[in-house]
């Protein structure tokens, strides 16, 4: 009852005219930066931060939070339409989302992404209210050994990301791991693979790599093939989901939501990891895994729900401990401090108006996002009928602006173009970019936590087995590898046997 009363108060605050406006402004800006490739929520929020000094803290946080979860919504749009992930968490959405678009089912893909996001966002909020204390205890139990084992599990998922050859996936993932090593080593602070270039001290950026591998490579591929667009445009009349689509995606959404909610609370890329894990899970339990990568709607629904649920649960450590689990929420923490809000464990008791106001505004914001996004689907889909001669230069321009805006370095444009050409070239031999991205994202976190865990255990590898949580992840990793690799090895053996 107390909870409901406080939530009621929160709604009174969130539904005041001012705060409704800030909420709307936030989710609108969030949708826009999510759709624009490369320009992420961090850029938008730091630009708008000074503007929030003039408004009350609750309004400011409502707006900034709106930008954050709004961008998670918007990120799927370009991923589906033109195979450019708006942000890193949408990389997986490209895989089947864009395939669906090619088959003329862009409307259905966008629709399921919007519904999945809405469901996940709302459920994550309920979880945020009810489970915050429990979740925090669980998150604190995660030490370096547990993180390391979780990253290992994540890396094993590579086995499920490949369309064709596990070996080729492993090669790409290995390459991603090596690329992730570039920069200052996080334990000894020594430079690695930097070739005395200042630009490489920080490693290469995720944004230019992803935009190159997916966006630029896709453009090059289409130019080469000269795809006949009439096929695509002829079939896009249907925007709604078929009942078969709905049956295929509804449980994927639920599973993605749960995964995202749990993983989102962990510091460091919870949203990205949860989207990969969700995709792998859907493919693993599917009765028809061969459809994945060729336009399976579950491959869009699950990951999209996962990254939005993760965006919601990421607020838990921020609100209850003052610990931001990702860079965007670190920015929000800075905003809270500038607005003189007592961050940390006492925030909810000291400023219940702010906490509950923001939570209630997120319900309101999720509804706004749904209302905003559903009518836009028709508009987005029509973008596909724009001739290539106009569409491609525009995409290219947006990519360049986005990459430059996110780092302010011309060097990153060269990185994007190089990875674009690289992605296009290797795709001709059946190498796919997704495993590379996974290795690139998880590799540095895996290494850092592995070494920290070994420092803490004084060099004993048993720490990964002795600690129960980490043992669970290690066993799960082994099982995943075994179930994925054994059939593949058997198949190879048979091949060789028949050749002999």
């Amino acid at each position, binding site marked *: 009852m107390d909870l409901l009363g406080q939530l009621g108060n929160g709604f009174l605050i969130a539904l005041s005219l001012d705060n409704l406006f800030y909420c709307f402004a936030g989710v609108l800006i969030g949708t826009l930066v999510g759709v624009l490739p490369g320009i992420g929520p961090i850029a938008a929020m730091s630009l708008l*931060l000074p503007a929030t000094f003039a408004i009350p803290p609750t309004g400011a946080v409502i707006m900034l939070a709106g930008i954050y979860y709004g961008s998670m919504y918007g990120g799927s749009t370009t991923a589906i339409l033109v195979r450019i992930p708006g942000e890193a968490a949408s990389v997986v959405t490209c895989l089947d989302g864009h395939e669906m678009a090619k088959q003329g089912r862009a409307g259905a893909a966008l629709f399921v992404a919007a519904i999945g996001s809405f469901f996940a966002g709302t459920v994550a909020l309920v979880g945020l209210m009810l489970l915050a204390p429990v979740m925090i205890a669980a998150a604190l139990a995660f030490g*370096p050994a547990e993180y390391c084992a979780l990253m290992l599990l994540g890396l094993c998922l590579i086995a499920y990301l490949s369309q064709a050859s596990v070996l080729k996936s492993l090669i790409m993932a290995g390459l991603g791991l090596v690329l992730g090593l570039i*920069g*200052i080593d996080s334990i000894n602070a020594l430079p690695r693979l930097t070739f005395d270039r200042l630009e490489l001290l920080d490693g290469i950026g995720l944004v230019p790599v992803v935009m190159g591998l997916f966006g630029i490579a896709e453009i090059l591929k289409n130019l080469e093939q000269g795809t006949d667009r009439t096929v695509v445009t002829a079939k896009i009349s249907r925007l709604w989901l078929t009942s078969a689509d709905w049956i295929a995606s509804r449980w994927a959404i639920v599973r993605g939501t749960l995964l995202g909610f749990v993983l989102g609370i962990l510091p460091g890329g919870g949203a990205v990891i949860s989207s990969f894990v969700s995709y792998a899970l859907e493919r693993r339990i599917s009765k028809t895994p061969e459809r994945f990568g060729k336009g399976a709607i579950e491959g869009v629904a699950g990951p999209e729900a996962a990254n939005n649920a993760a965006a919601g649960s990421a607020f838990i450590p921020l609100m209850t*401990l003052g610990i931001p689990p990702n860079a965007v929420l*670190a920015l929000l*923490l800075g905003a809270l*401090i500038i607005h003189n809000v007592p961050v*940390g464990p006492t925030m909810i008791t000291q400023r219940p108006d702010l906490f509950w106001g923001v939570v209630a505004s997120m319900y309101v914001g999720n509804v706004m996002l749904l209302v905003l996004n559903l009518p836009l689907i028709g508009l987005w889909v029509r973008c596909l009928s724009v001739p290539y001669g106009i569409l491609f230069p525009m995409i290219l321009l947006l990519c360049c602006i986005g990459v430059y805006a996110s780092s302010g370095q011309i060097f990153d444009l060269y990185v994007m173009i190089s990875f674009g050409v690289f992605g296009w070239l290797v795709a001709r031999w059946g190498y796919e970019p997704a495993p590379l991205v996974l290795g690139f994202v998880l590799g540095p976190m895996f290494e850092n936590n592995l070494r*920290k865990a070994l420092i803490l255990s004084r060099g004993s590898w048993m720490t990964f087995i002795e600690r129960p949580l980490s043992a669970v992840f290690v066993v799960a990793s082994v099982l995943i590898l075994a179930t994925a690799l054994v059939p593949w090895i058997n198949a190879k053996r048979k091949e060789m046997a028949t050749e002999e």
Partner: protein
Amino acid sequence: MPKTIWTPTRRRFIASSSTLALAGLAAPGLAQSRFPNRPVTLIVPWTAGGSTDAGFRALAEATQKHLGERIIVENKPGAGGTLGPAQMAASARPDGYTLAQMPITMFRLPHMTRVAFNPLTDFSYVIHVAGYCFGTTVRADSPHKTMKDLIDFARANPDKVTYATPGAGTSLHITMMDIAARQNIKWTHVPFRGAAETNAAVLGGHVTAQADSSGWAPLVNAGQLRLLATWGKNRTKTWSSVPTLQESGIDIVANSPFGLAGPKGMDPGIVKVLHDAFKKGIEEPEHMRVMDQLDQEVDYMDTATYETFVKKMYEDMREQVERLNLRRS
């Protein structure tokens, strides 16, 4: 007499023209260069949302009304806070439109490894701003009540005490090494990435102690972490009952003082305009309030004093690096 754009009443005209005349005397560079006439970029070499970033965003906000142009905070983290200033020194024009925070690593790193910048010759120093509040914490249920308890325990159990810092080679890490060297004890360093991770590590019981800048403040205030000592010269305003390192019997003061600088060769007139605006910005109540909340101690120095201070700091760092044998190559 500079032209005024609006039509003033007589009294206001006299008042404003006299201030303008005074300003003209004080800042010869102002009239001829018309600096600034576009936004000024302030490079903060740490991630957005950290305590340095929050402080500088408040300073930028407080200063821009005195400068008359927007100040844009740009986060260029990396290489222990040296990447941003080093890139600025290498590529930005010394026109006053690009400034950077100069963290202490700018003066320490050159003694430790080969770097592409020289802190004494590659920068035009503008103003010294503040220092951080560092401290050592343990979990509230820890048996260690004071810094001495922790050190005694470490002496009795070599390598048993683990401490989390926000990164290898940071002042936190090096000061903890310095403490160990002076007290002749051994403890184990576990480098995390930023305050969010070190807080979680000590709260979750994965490490014995945490050495970090005041990211622990909310948890200390809520009674979940115990602050054993702060590392400044004086006790902090917020935690006045907590002793300093010196009071705990360790003769070290560490607060990683920082200021602002541009690329070398900036016009002294422009430096003066920037210095004057930032001085007023530093003194703005809103900035002071944010700095209080971030537990950063404002420590203003004018351009000349800061330049002298930089030379001394550079030598102090050389001495520290040699004594602790931190040189890598």
